[in-house]
């Protein structure tokens, strides 16, 4: 995939399929350590140890179950080609945390891509889940918390164009401030 945001979309779809109620997407661009770290945490059904052991293997995962595709192995390959790594921790019934880091300045690191559009796609596609999107750079931190949005919106659902457009603009502005 040519942009990291597409990987994030793919992984969050797994969390949604795992019936998560809360999903956190955390992005940390650390110049001094030259690392871009993406952490995706959910409180979904989690994975068994056996499943977890095989989840990076594209053949095992696609052949023995349909729960995960090639997503994780491709994400890991994208990280490894920049000197980075991918780690998954999961417990049945508790949830899953996926952490992946990239060499921030590696020439083989794909651009992050359209994070505003990605979050809007995620929120609009599964509006009953609560999301936190936290993005940190050397210039500051941006946080989107859908629980706060719900308080403001009241009964207005997330998946209507006006709300999604507003969220998109809000994220774009927030990210522009810290880039």
């Amino acid at each position, binding site marked *: 995939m*040519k942009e990291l945001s597409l990987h994030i979309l793919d992984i969050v779809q797994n969390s949604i399929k795992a019936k998560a109620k809360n999903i956190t997407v955390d992005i940390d661009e650390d110049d001094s350590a030259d690392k871009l770290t993406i952490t995706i945490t959910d409180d979904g059904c989690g994975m068994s140890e056996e499943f977890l052991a095989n989840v990076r293997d594209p053949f095992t995962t696609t052949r023995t179950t349909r729960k995960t595709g090639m997503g994780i192995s491709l994400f890991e390959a994208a990280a490894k080609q920049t000197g980075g790594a991918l780690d998954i921790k999961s417990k049945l019934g508790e949830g899953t945390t996926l952490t992946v880091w990239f060499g921030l300045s590696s*020439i*083989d690191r*794909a651009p992050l891509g359209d994070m505003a559009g990605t979050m809007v796609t995620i929120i609009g596609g599964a509006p009953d889940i609560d999301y936190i999107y936290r993005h940190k750079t050397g210039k500051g931190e941006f946080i989107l918390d859908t629980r706060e949005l719900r308080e403001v919106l009241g009964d207005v659902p997330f998946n209507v164009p006006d709300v999604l457009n507003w969220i998109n603009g809000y994220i774009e502005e927030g990210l522009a401030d810290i880039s």
Partner: protein
Amino acid sequence: MKVSELAKALELRLISAEGYEDREVTGCYIGDLLSWVMGRAEPGDAWITIMSNINIAAVASLADTACVILAEGVVPDPGVKEKCDMQDIIVLGSDKTAYELAAGYARLT
């Protein structure tokens, strides 16, 4: 062969650095892993890739390729054309695959 002649023969679209197409093409290289291309592409190569991010400008410049050909209908990411215009990096586009483009080049030489 000049870049302009290659572009005409393979029906390539000129994306950036108009006016520099008299540059000589002396070889051809295909690759998408940029660090790999950086160490292997030769000066004067027509470099065929499907990568479209800003780093292609850096690699084309470092490896001193004659031009970059974006295969399979790939278009440069926002800002890449402008950067390539500034750096006189010729970027061309095609709907053909990397194989078809390289085979086309081979027929011309």
